[in-house]
């Protein structure tokens, strides 16, 4: 049974439809990322799953229960990171973690969580004086203190520095291994590529694409490269006997199955034309490119 199940969810605020027919699920031990531009309906979807609002139509289930009617039974298994805030401004990480630990029957040790999320040095600093990244890491620690089975993490890496990000990633990985189902939202797509098994891209309340981060764009593995300076794509295409397209300024894609021979031909051609290769990669479209392409297409139509 999926830990989180969303079927044809629709949420409307008066005339404004925030979520319009979204379906997806998250299995125990799986990390799924909900992606979309601001106002796409991500937070509304997550808040419906957290039981903060009711669906206008469609159904949501968390651990098999209705999040609103089953709220009282669900909360002990729920870990939540809100988009921001949620913590008493005057309380230090150590104090608020001990307080939250008292809400649960079998809490994790606050000291252990402070260590895992690299918060020991600021353990007695009031929340309001923590940096944005420290506040977000504390919010994650609070979400995990009750040993949840389901986590909703709204932008858990927002404002977190690179070292903190590694800590966050390790903690989320450990939860995944313990069988926790995790639904997160994020704008940091390279982070999502590392964290999530699957992504669901939504905009204007509708699902645009869903799947593993490296497959969600569809398409085949291809050679992608960057060259600064002018490049005659037609001439290169003729030499390689494949279509060469400029995907973004200075970024190109060779429309043929990648092979060592093709890579050699490409670099040889660039060498004879005295063009410096800035980047070379064989693979599918990066998540960021898929995201921008889908969201842009949606905006254009």
């Amino acid at each position, binding site marked *: 049974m999926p830990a989180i199940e969303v079927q044809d969810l629709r949420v409307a605020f008066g005339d404004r439809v925030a979520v319009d027919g979204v379906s997806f699920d998250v299995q125990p031990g799986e990390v799924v990322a909900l992606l979309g531009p601001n106002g796409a309906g991500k937070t509304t979807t997550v808040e419906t799953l957290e039981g*903060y609002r009711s669906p206008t139509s469609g159904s949501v289930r968390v651990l098999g229960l209705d999040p609103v009617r089953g709220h009282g039974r669900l909360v002990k298994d729920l870990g939540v990171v809100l988009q921001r805030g949620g913590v*008493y*401004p005057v309380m230090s990480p150590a104090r608020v973690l001990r307080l939250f630990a*008292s*809400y649960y029957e079998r809490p994790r040790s606050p000291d252990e969580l402070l260590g895992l999320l690299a918060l020991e040095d600021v353990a007695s600093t009031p929340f309001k004086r923590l940096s944005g990244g420290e506040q977000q890491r504390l919010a994650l620690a609070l979400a995990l203190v*009750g040993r949840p089975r389901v986590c909703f993490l709204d932008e858990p890496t927002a404002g977190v520095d690179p070292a903190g990000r590694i800590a966050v990633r390790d903690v989320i990985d450990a939860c995944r291994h313990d069988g926790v189902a995790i639904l997160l939202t994020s704008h940091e797509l390279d982070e999502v590529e590392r964290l999530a098994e699957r992504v669901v891209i939504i905009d204007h309340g509708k699902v645009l694409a869903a799947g593993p981060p490296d497959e969600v764009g569809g398409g085949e593995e291809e050679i992608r490269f960057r060259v600064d300076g002018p490049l005659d794509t037609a001439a290169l295409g003729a030499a390689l006997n494949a279509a060469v397209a400029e995907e973004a300024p200075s970024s190109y894609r060779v429309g043929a199955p990648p092979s060592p021979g093709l890579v050699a031909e490409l670099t040889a051609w660039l060498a004879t034309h005295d063009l410096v290769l800035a980047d070379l990669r064989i693979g599918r479209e990066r998540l960021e490119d898929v995201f921008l392409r889908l969201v842009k297409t949606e905006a254009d139509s």
Partner: protein
Amino acid sequence: MTMLRAQVAAEVRMTLERGETLLVTIGIPAFLLVFFSLVKVLPTGTSHPVDFLAPGVLGLAVMSTALVSLGIATGFERSFGVLKRLGATPLGRPRLLAAKIVAVLAVEIVQVLVLAAIAVGLGWRPHPAAGLAVVAELLATIAFAGLGLAMAGSLRAEINLALANALYIVLLLIGGIVFPLAKLGGFAAFARVLPAAALSDALHPTLGQGAAPGAEAWIVLAIWAVVTPLVAALTFRWE
């Protein structure tokens, strides 16, 4: 039970650690009590002003905690998303509310002990049969807490802060706390339907002579104690 105890302890500690709250809950009432007992400029109608001031200041204490301190803190917790976040924990809203009520009562006990000790030091001798004063203080606590929560649950935190402080000043002036209601002239009729004046009307006879207050004070207090929690319950928005 563990979590309720932990939440009460957290609420009490936060209240007692907030400097501006201590100023309003203990500092200002204590200053008014001492200053006007020693500087006899108020028209209290007695050569011993502390006898008039002490009951009023004990009423002010309840108002400052249940209305001002509880209301302002809850308003900010709401705007910081704390109430929303706690809604997703096993603590839940009923226990959070219970913790806040117990914390308010605990702080009030501290206030009454401190302020009564100061008043006694200034020569005040409360009547020993003052049990009805406790009932009046409890009713007023409910009425003021309901009002504070009704404001905190519907107004923006900054507006709620300003309004709660303004109410504190106005009710201090027309609540029979420093100026006797009889000296308020045209304001008196208006003041008497407000909970602050009803509270001091109840506290003066009970603490002064051990006498039962008039029915009007009880009726006004009781109505406020029913209406404000009801309004708060119906209008409170958690985020």
